[in-house]
């Protein structure tokens, strides 16, 4: 399915230590809430000091250039937090957890150069501020693990697609029908990564309804329709030459995907947003039975998306447990609940078809997806805290 997911890859601008919020209400006289007025040639921070703890900088760009605001370490190099892309006239908040010490504040009009810097001191308020520094190690571990997972899944996707394509071209339809959902599961596990390739995704995974007039219908779902034509009214089966062409292109595109995923790397927010994105995929197309309209094998895809989200979460767990153990506990519980519901629909090595589900069962699954998605959507902000 073509989805313009910005969850992975597109949104990588988050700094590890910073996060922005726009709704932190400024309390009058709050020493931890500082207004920053940035112009094209000045950077006025309301105060040069703040008590240690959670500090909010409300940055207003009063100039004509795009601006950004930084808090830097005492060496003037280490970025403690930043908020970028503040258009002229707009305001953004930067919320940071600051330990006692010396820092620099900096605006960067036009987003170039060293910026307009000023010393900034954080005075010990006695409040415990979480340790920083070793988070990077957790992120590196998560990134390595997730990149490995993506590689492994595309390895399996390629191998199984190869078998599927061979069966399709040989006219072994029963075998192809068995291989189809199994191979696609590997696509679904890494769907937010796979569909980030805008050239491949429409060719490989577009549903017929996603196409515009005159656009070619190719890829997995084109073959799906030919293998399960029962719901297609007035459908004319493809010739073996047509089938071979679609199948060969699918395989070639899978090889391209495989090759491109060899060297990918991921940041914490990409992994985390990817997990949420996979749950969105479930909510949008799988739990509604829209994704596999012809074969009704939606629950395989469902499981694939959930697997992918779980792996992403597991990679980030050490960091999340440190930052927000309660949230981690919620996610843990909801993954288990959802999996239990899915397990109840297992049949042999796979799942029952979507049309076998009662309305109540679909509702239960949907509720469970919501129950998991809600805490999962908070993971990015938590791990970047």
């Amino acid at each position: 399915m073509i989805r313009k997911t910005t969850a992975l890859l597109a949104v990588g601008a988050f700094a590890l230590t910073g996060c922005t919020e726009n709704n932190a209400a400024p309390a009058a006289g709050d020493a931890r809430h500082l207004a920053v007025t940035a112009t094209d040639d000045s950077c006025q921070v309301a105060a040069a000091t703040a008590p240690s703890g959670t500090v909010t900088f409300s940055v207003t760009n009063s100039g004509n250039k795009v601006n950004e605001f930084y808090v830097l370490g005492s060496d003037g190099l280490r970025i403690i937090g930043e908020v970028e892309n503040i258009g002229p006239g707009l305001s953004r908040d930067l919320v940071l957890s600051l330990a006692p010490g010396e820092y620099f504040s900096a605006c960067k009009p036009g987003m170039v150069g060293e910026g307009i810097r000023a010393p900034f001191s954080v005075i010990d308020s006695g409040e415990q501020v979480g340790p920083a520094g070793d988070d990077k190690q957790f992120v590196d571990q998560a990134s390595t693990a997730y990149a490995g997972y993506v590689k492994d899944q595309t390895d399996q996707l390629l191998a199984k697609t190869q078998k599927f394509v061979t069966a399709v071209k040989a006219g072994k339809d029963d075998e192809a029908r068995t291989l189809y959902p199994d191979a696609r599961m590997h696509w679904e596990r890494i769907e937010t990564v796979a569909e980030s390739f805008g050239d491949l995704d429409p060719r490989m995974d577009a549903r017929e309804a996603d196409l515009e007039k005159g656009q070619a219908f190719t890829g997995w779902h084109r073959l799906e329709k030919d293998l399960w034509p029962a719901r297609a009214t007035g459908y004319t089966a493809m010739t073996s030459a047509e089938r071979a062409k679609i199948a060969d292109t699918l395989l070639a595109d899978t090889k391209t995907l495989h090759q491109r995923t060899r060297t990918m790397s991921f940041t914490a927010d990409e992994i985390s947003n990817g997990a949420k994105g996979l749950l969105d995929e479930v909510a949008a197309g799988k739990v509604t039975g829209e994704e596999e309209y012809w074969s009704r094998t939606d629950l395989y895809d469902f499981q694939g998306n959930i697997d992918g989200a779980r792996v992403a979460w597991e990679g980030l767990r050490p960091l999340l447990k440190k930052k927000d153990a309660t949230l981690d506990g919620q996610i843990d519980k909801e993954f288990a609940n959802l999996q239990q519901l899915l397990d109840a629909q297992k049949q042999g090595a796979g799942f029952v078809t979507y049309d076998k589900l009662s309305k109540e069962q679909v509702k239960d699954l949907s509720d469970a997806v919501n129950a998991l998605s809600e805490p999962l959507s908070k993971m990015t902000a938590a791990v970047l805290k």
Partner: protein
Amino acid sequence: MTAVQPGGLSRRGLLAASGAGAAAAGGLSAAMMLTPGHAGATPEQAADSPAERRYDFRGEHQAGITTPAQDRMHFAAFDMDPRASREDLVALLQDWTSAAERMTDGRGAGSLGPLSGPYDAPPDDTGEAIDLPPAGLTITFGFGSSLFGGEGSGKDRFGLAARRPAALERLPHFPGDNLRQQLSDGDLCIQACSDDPQVAVHAVRNLTRIAMGRAHLRWSQLGFGRTSSTSDAQSTPRNLFGFKDGTMGLRGEETDAIDEHVWVSSGADPLAEWMTGGSYLVARKIAMRIEPWDRSSLREQERVVGRTKAEGAPLSGGTEFSQPDFAVKGRGGQPMVALDSHVGIAHPSHNDGVRLLRRGYNYVDGNDEMGRLAAGLFFIAFVTDPRTHYIPMQTKMSRDDLMQEYVQHVGSGLFAVPPGAQGDRYVGRGLFA
């Protein structure tokens, strides 16, 4: 212009309306200011209270297009009865015209009203609007392509095929569409808007009743909370995604732009000269994926829209009404307002200067079987020609708009809206002349 109705004698059927006339007279200038340069219907009776506001049904253009968008809507599409003749269709339009004229004036649907007439007969008005002022009621009629024969329905049932406007085809399939037949198309449509939902519903209910045996209700939609402004006097409302909507939409005050983008001009379509002064109504029921949207970060939401959630300013800077500057680059050299953001896709500068007069409404139809809010936007736009003013833009949106991830189009209709009924003529008379 008549500023004061004579005594309000027949308002909603004989119920006293003392004070309404006086209030209306006193508020004339205020209401005039509320509707400056109003190109279609003029306020027949003006009032400083929105509830007392009323718009003349008759005029060069139909009311409900450039009229300042009211807060509520009841939209309905009808199919002609298979047995209905051309004469039945004409008679229906005549009956609808007189009922609409009465109801927009604050009177009952029939000449007797809800409480008069034979005691042993059902009243000719259903009565739920007794005591209610018109609250700015407008009623707008349109013709679907199926009324003109061809296109599946086969034969030319009403002898209108030769006068079918070239622009009146079914809208094409757009990527991602999941249209339901029971929420799409129709031979006729009625858009009833009012600041009081009961007044709008009353209008559609009575017009449906009048049509029985000649035309049958095919589908309808209730809307609340206008999602666009059609007058400078209005503030920009928010849609169910929590963002201001329709900031760039055409306003009634922009009369030159309205002439260019909304009304059909003489000579535009030789087969359909009867459409001169009319417009085309595009209706799309757009389901919103509320739950995933609510779980997306503010960063993602603003990126998708291309504007700030707080004020609605473009991310390139400025205030709500600043033009987005697509040349302004942020971190990584990327445009601050993404070209595939909602604003980036829909902006006139990326659509050959095309602008739409939007009149959409929020809707919530309870919830679906999965316990998700069945909510979204009932999009209505009035355009001079859908082939230039809707189809190309929607094609691009459906393909590239980041917001597509959070919406699904489930209903669709295109209707030719004839010019206003002038003098003592009925609406659409030009088609049968």
